[in-house]
């Protein structure tokens, strides 16, 4: 039965047996999207929140790199250029580099305090007045020099230097890998290809030198 009353039409539709199926479908769709948002929240937003805590910045670098990857990383696609994902490879060494920088800054702060303390003690011991500026400057310079030289030769500095070197090299290698991908995309030679050519030429030069030396030692035909 047809009616022109909109309210009646609405009520008729609700009585339709299909309506419960539509409701169920809507509920499932909503549930699926809720799961997706929850997963994004747990998988992306929570790690992002962790990254906002400065207390974590100086700790485990790999953990921070993992968190960054959780926030920004994507799976690998066979038919998409995914430079964003490739860029993520540089996170771990970049984070380690930043952490070494922090550790070095902390040591520099400690050494600076040591310089000031030592300078004050030496100034007092010598009974010098502050307006004796020339002599005070010499004493300051000597104190800075001695303290920094000792620090630069310390095991603490050596440890930081090793960490810095390893992180820096890892970072550079990751960057090179990334640039290599771009170079390949535009049919430009990569560093690896140039190195390979240089190695082959170098080996040929060595071989050439060896052969010329052997030749100069060999008896001439007239001597044979």
């Amino acid at each position, binding site marked *: 039965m047809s009616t022109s009353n909109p309210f009646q039409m609405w009520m008729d539709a609700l009585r339709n047996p299909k309506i419960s199926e539509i409701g169920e479908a809507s509920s499932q769709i909503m549930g699926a999207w809720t799961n997706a948002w929850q997963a994004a929240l747990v998988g992306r937003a929570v790690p992002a929140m962790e990254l906002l805590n400065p207390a974590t910045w100086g700790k485990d670098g790999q953990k921070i790199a993992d968190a960054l990857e959780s926030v920004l990383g994507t799976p690998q696609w066979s038919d998409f250029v995914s430079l964003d994902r490739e860029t993520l490879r540089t996170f771990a060494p970049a984070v380690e580099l930043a952490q070494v920088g922090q550790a070095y800054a902390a040591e520099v702060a400690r050494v600076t305090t040591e310089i000031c303390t030592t300078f004050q003690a030496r100034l007092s011991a010598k009974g010098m007045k502050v307006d004796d500026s020339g002599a005070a400057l010499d004493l300051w310079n000597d104190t*800075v020099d001695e303290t920094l030289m000792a620090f630069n030769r310390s095991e603490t500095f050596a440890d930081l230097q090793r960490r810095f070197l390893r992180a820096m090299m890892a970072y550079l290698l990751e960057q090179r890998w990334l640039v290599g991908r771009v170079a390949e995309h535009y049919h430009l030679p990569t560093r690896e290809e140039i190195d390979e050519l240089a190695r082959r030429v170098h080996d040929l*030069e060595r071989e050439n030198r060896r052969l010329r030396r052997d030749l100069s030692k060999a008896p001439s035909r007239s001597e044979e």
Partner: protein
Amino acid sequence: MSEIPDTAPITTELTRLIETQRRLAETARQLAVTRDRDVELATMPKEEVHRIGDKVLYHCGEPGERSTGKVPVLVIYALVGRYTVLDLQPDRSFLGSLMEGGLDVYVVDWGHPNRACRYDDLGDYVEGYLDAFVDTVRTESGQEAINLLGICQGGVLSLCYAAMFPEKLRNLILAVTPVDFHADIDDPHPGRGFMNVWARSLDAADIDLLVDTYGNVPGEIGGMAFTLMTPMRSLAKYNLTLVEASQDDAKLMNFLRMEKWLADRPAHAGGAAKQWLNDLYRENRLVRGELVLSGERIDLGRVTMPILNIYTETDHIIPPAMTKALRGKTGTSDYTEFVARGGHIGVMVAGGSSRRTLRETVTSWLADR
């Protein structure tokens, strides 16, 4: 009535302030009118006689001018610094000083290794480039054997060359040359031998990683190590030292020439850098007779020609113990040591009586042989 304040301290402080400002203003004035082209290095006339890539053999003197009948001296400087320091300025030119002493002088410019040079190792430098240059000097001079003068790392190359090709050398002169790379361990000094401590603090794998990543070790890394070696000198260089130098034209030009030389830091070719840092600085293979170049073990017993070993007691880069260790390690029966004045670089750029004494030592030692 209140006391009249003592104005003396105020006057003293004002005088200091005026003097400081005057000196700073003079520095600014000097820098405002000085350009890079005004700072000249290596101006002594010289002629290119052999080139291999960017590695060049020069004959010192006017082009076409050759001494006849003299045994020439081939001067070899380090790979990690330019030879231009040997001709810093006319009155502080080591090469010029040798020429004033009547010697026929050749010098090698190792150039700036690029990526194509990354596989060049010390063997390539000694058995390849240096041997080719020695042969050219022998041919040009008509001498079967020539005199080789190696400085710092160039001294190590020269010493290895002398062990590989003793028949081509008449005399060997070494200056501030490291031989025992661990000699500093028994003679520790906070202001000396930082490079030794620095290199030994790294693992062999770290050095390999550094070289494999960069290809060649950039000159800036060497510069950084030197900065760490003398921290206060580095910190004060562009304030106290520059201001002081700027008050005198000649001193300022000295300072700027040295700056220009320091800024011109060649990279260390990868293969050579690995051997230099791992085989020599870390493992001390030269003095142990375990260094292998181009497949040949370097036997210092084969160095039988006369040796003059020059060092300074105030060398903070190559502590004297590293150099003096050569005594008794070679096969020569004619070994002389000379203690020069100055530091590691200073010995080569000295002027005045130090320059004269060094020249007379070298020329008279050679004249006797």
